[in-house]
């Protein structure tokens, strides 16, 4: 084997050891419409990888397939080296893939504390109807609530929260289970100007040690947080690289022309 080949093999080996998420040829078609077309992506441990693109580029569809709420038409998803393409959504969550939705999905009728506690309890599959509650879940919920610093009391019903607080709660619920991979879908969308700084501060701290896939339209946030960026347009990857490269990329500029 030549030195170049050796280096390449070594590089490949190093990459796969660190690769948390590997997507190959992921495709989703709805009838004649192709939402996602042959997307490849490799995310190493600890990276914050942003996925950007004009509306309708297929970003949320991609997320849905990674999270497991949508079955791909073609392609594979590997998580920690294991093929999870056929694994159910709830199982993926239990394995450490956590998701914060763009449109907040909370448990509206129960308290803020209970929302977090339920999120903490989720991976702890217990079907014994007569078991007692695990105080660890309460502790984790309380801890996360402190970190979130919302304007509401723990016994406040989640439906009463402000939009910004709901967004925080959504993210908090995704984090409380100590996920391995966090899928963050437009965490700042719809958040009022006044609430933005607090949310951003929380966000930046929260994602520091995590592997994150981020969908976000706030360009400044993307450039500030991302290690690497993938640009999607009409379901295809049109560019990938670190923030400086992407900003300078002509194809990206063209895609956003008349864009968002």
């Amino acid at each position, binding site marked *: 084997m030549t030195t170049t080949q050796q280096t390449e093999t070594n590089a490949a080996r190093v990459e796969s050891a660190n690769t948390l998420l590997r997507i190959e040829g992921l495709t989703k078609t709805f009838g004649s419409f192709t939402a996602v077309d042959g997307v490849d992506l490799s995310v190493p441990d600890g990276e914050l990888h942003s996925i950007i693109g004009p509306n309708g580029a297929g970003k949320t569809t991609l997320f849905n397939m990674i999270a497991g709420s949508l079955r791909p038409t073609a392609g594979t998803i590997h998580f920690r080296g294991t093929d999870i393409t056929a694994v*159910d959504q*709830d199982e993926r969550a239990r394995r450490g893939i956590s998701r914060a939705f763009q449109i907040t999905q*909370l*448990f509206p*009728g*129960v308290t803020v504390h209970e929302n977090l506690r*339920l999120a903490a309890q989720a991976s702890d599959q217990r079907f014994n109807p007569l*078991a*007692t509650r695990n105080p660890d879940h309460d502790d984790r919920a309380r801890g996360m609530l402190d970190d979130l610093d919302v304007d509401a009391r723990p016994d406040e019903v989640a*439906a009463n929260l402000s939009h910004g607080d709901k967004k925080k709660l959504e993210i908090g619920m995704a984090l409380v289970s100590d996920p391995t991979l966090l899928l963050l879908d437009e965490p700042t969308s719809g958040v009022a100007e006044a609430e933005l700084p607090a949310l951003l501060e929380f966000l930046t701290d929260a994602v520091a040690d995590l592997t994150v896939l981020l969908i976000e339209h706030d360009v400044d946030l993307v450039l500030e947080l991302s290690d690497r960026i993938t640009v999607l347009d009409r379901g295809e990857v049109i560019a990938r690289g670190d923030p400086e490269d992407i900003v300078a990329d002509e194809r990206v500029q063209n895609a956003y022309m008349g864009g968002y």
Partner: protein
Amino acid sequence: MGGDESTTERAVGAPGVASPLSVSVAGRELSGTTALAALGVGFLLFAPAILADYLIQILTLSLIFALFAISVDLLWGYTGILTFGHAVFLGGGAYLMGTLLEAVGTGPAIVYAGLAAGTVLPGLLGLVVAGVLFSRGISEDYFTIITLALAIIAEQIAVSWSSVTNGANGLLVPPARVGIPGVVATELTGVPFYYLCVGVLLAGYLVARRIVDSPFGRALVAINENETKATALGYDTEKYKTLVFGVSSGMAGFAGTLYVLSERFISPPLLGFVQSTDVLIWVLVGGRGTLVGGILGTISLRFFENTISGALAFSWILVLGIVLILIVLLFPEGLVGVVEVARERLRDRRDDEATDHSSDPDL
């Protein structure tokens, strides 16, 4: 505490949020709730001294139906599964017990076998039905329609399969004897049987309360609140729904066995959709998602049905239909919800007064 409690909207009556009659709520003032609960239990314990015999008979059956209502509340109030066919399990348990007593014997061993069969077999049937339907992601609406059809079919089968069920005439069942097999056996009727039912209902309530407070029960609430989110978080929602359906069906079957011990007669309507929808109305009027609401609704509505309805110019069912519409429109949280709102208003007023006084310069 003090006067700075804001008038935040509570999810009145919603499962997981304290309801006035629940005893096991952490951190809430228990004095009001325990008082009411004690009152309720006290009434039940002293009822034979206050009420006439025929009322005790009605109350006994109401207690059994209240257990049935609790099984429905677990399914509907807590998990959000609306079924129009739960009486199939109630009646199933009843026919199982009844057939055993009628065909095999009336001794304690048979009774225990009947209790077991009448609980386990409906429970298993529930697991299978729910398992099949939920695993395929049947929509809630379709599930409800299928359960309605199930109840109608079950009643028709009970009518036509007369070799087993004695058809529309119903099955007369000899009185059962309880006790220890081979040692002692007595017929249980009247007041002693009433107290047995009180005990069983209390035990059933405590078991149900334990279930809803457990992680399993909390998961059910999560599924009811937002099933999409629950799945996304990692809850295997199909499994939870299937399991609670099995538990609930078993409980309904158990209530059915008690029904036979009490009434000594079963007929097809016990399996049908009228009985299935009656229990929904009891739970709704009492307050779904509270467990106590089911007990309250059952006892009060059955009381009215058996006493006042005779005096009415028109039918009880008409009243029920109108009550149903009004409750759904105006008081969807039921009696318990109304009480809870009243308590909130009282508390807020008390707190306002306390704040007023605290600004009094003389203090």
